[in-house]
């Protein structure tokens, strides 16, 4: 790179953009602290996962195809969502197979990273100067865990958070029951899965439930909130960027 500084596109995803702007800001902050020049394209919207997962491949093709265009030639892409990163890395291949976009999809897959992966594996950083006084437990979001092999990175980062006591979450790799439209279409199964997750979280008596995926966070936070639980759900980036207020 001519400037000598790393550049990366922060693809904040539609859910972060609309529901959790602080997660986007935290991710940007985190990257900038490490000297990365962050770019947020104003017309970058969604990876297309919702349509793809529901089986609407033409719709997914339209949404994701547009995203491919926006990200063409942009260098590294960092996403604060394992699920959306997995969509690009793992599923674009099938979505764009035998189409004019196949090459572009392949190229994008190779330069797309989930946030914790980018920080730890690419930037080589685990100490980011975060503090949190309280007890933290970590939920492995499924797609990041199983399709990107994540988990180690977030734990390394959390392990360096000053003042935090990180306790293991029983069944941390069990699905929270979100699953996109599944949460609505199969709401009763989803709720049964959520119940188990909430019970596990409550057993840890943690102040914060941390995860790397805002979709799981929405599900889990929704469950915690409905039960008026004292535990709050936060995205990893928020903790690392010191954007979680003590209570």
């Amino acid at each position, binding site marked *: 790179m001519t400037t000598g500084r790393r550049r990366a596109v922060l693809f904040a995803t539609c859910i972060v953009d609309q529901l959790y702007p602080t997660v986007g800001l935290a991710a940007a902050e985190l990257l900038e602290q490490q000297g990365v020049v962050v770019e947020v394209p104003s*017309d970058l919207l969604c990876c297309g996962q919702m349509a793809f997962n529901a089986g609407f*491949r033409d719709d997914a093709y339209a949404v994701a195809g547009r995203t491919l265009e926006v990200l063409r030639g942009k260098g590294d892409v960092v996403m604060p969502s394992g699920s959306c990163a997995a969509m690009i890395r793992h599923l674009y291949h099938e979505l764009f197979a035998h189409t004019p976009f196949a090459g572009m999809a392949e190229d994008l897959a190779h330069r797309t990273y989930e946030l914790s992966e980018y920080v730890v594996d690419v930037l080589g950083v685990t100490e980011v100067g975060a503090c949190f006084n309280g007890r933290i437990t970590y939920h492995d979001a499924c797609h990041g865990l199983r399709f990107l092999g994540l988990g180690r990175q977030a734990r390394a980062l959390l392990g360096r958070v000053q003042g935090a006591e990180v306790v293991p979450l029983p069944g941390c790799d069990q699905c929270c029951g979100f699953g996109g439209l599944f949460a609505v279409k199969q709401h009763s*199964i*989803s709720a049964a899965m959520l119940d188990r997750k909430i019970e596990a979280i409550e057993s840890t008596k943690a102040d914060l439930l941390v995860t790397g995926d805002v979709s799981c966070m*929405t599900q889990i936070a929704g469950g915690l909130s409905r039960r008026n639980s004292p535990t709050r759900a936060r995205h990893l980036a928020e903790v690392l960027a010191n954007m979680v207020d003590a209570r």
Partner: protein
Amino acid sequence: MSQTIAFYDRVDHALHDSSLQTALHRATTRFIGNRAGAIGALCDADRLRDQARAIRAYALAHLDELLPQLAANVEARGGHVCWASDGEEARRYIIELARARGVRSIVKSKSMASEEIHLNEALEHAGFEVVETDLGEYIIQLAGETPSHIIAPAIHKTREQVSELFQQHLGMPPTNEVPPMIRTARQALRQRFLQADMGISGVNFGVADSGAIVIVENEGNARLSTTVPRIHVAIMGIERIVARLADLGVMLQVLARSATGQKLSVYTSLISGPARPGEEDGPEEFHLVLLDNGRSRILGGQYAESLLCIRCGACLNACPVYQAIGGHAYGGVYSGPIGAILTPLLQPDLPDAYLLPQASSLCGACQEVCPVRIAIPDMLLRHRADAVKAGKANPVEKAAIAGYTLTMTHPAIYNAGGKAGRFFSRILARKGRFRRLPPPLHLWTKQRDFPALPPKSFRELWAERQKQRRSSS
């Protein structure tokens, strides 16, 4: 028949059946722990699983040669082979055989292929007495039900329910202790074996180069079924083949460990044809039914990978949806993640088969434990795409996706939509959350809250921040 009840009703029923919930929890936790221990103890589990996958893939790639080889070897050993295109042909062959040989009573050891073709009903209808001899299968046969798990068919039954069945059908004195129930079943079934004219078994693997079939079990009922009666009929899905005897050195290792966490199952029988001259025991006749039933076509399509399956059941146990609803809710012969793939393919006439692939959060736990690493979530997604293509999507969802696509391909609409959402959120949300949302999102807020939308989107905040930075620098 459970098939006439809609999928969602079955799910609801399962979720509210507390004894089922207890049983499922007990069984799946135990299986998961056993499997993890057994796989974890291996020197190189990853390699062994990769080998298992490679061996199965090789077998499928050469199915057109290996099946004739298997058949020829079986025949060379004096066995008979029936090539059955579908369930009807398989049933007819077995019924005609039984009639021709004057068979009256039949013992069966567990076979998912025979469940698939509803063999029991057909045999009973034809006037034969058929007894399932695997304890779990026997229990559900007495109860008039179907298996709820590939390897533990009766996990949904409590000991009290089993006791009642045995009291009613076998005259067992009242008890809730397991050992007397075991003794009762042993005695009752032993006589059935000794009096049976025909034994019907499934097949875990066909071994092409040896003309042998492999049957894996823990109870000994398959050994009895294939040793004691004078005729042995084995039913094998055509995909369940390996090329060489040596392949078992990999396949049996991963099968037992993935299924139950055992190093090897208690009994692994390799059977090649009928008893030889000079042997004191064993069946006089051996018949191998090679069942296609759609498999030869599946092999050519986008679900071919599902034919690698060795029916270990690990994906069922690992699946959080299966853990929540059990096997019956799926409505097909095969349940759990692999069932959600196979049922729409093998039983396309089930009206709500297309819903099964929707009943997954796509968490990937199935693929993680699968000994042959089948990419189950990818295939679930393909089924969903097929259902949409076939016009089976529900209208609300269709409209929602159309709206989504319009929004996500037009930044102006996206931004306007976001603004509108935030406006309503400001008015309607309380204390930073929604307790209730209008349909169809009420299904979300039925069980959980939804966060209030923030005053500004990330990109708005980002734009402001960049502007500030520029002006301050």
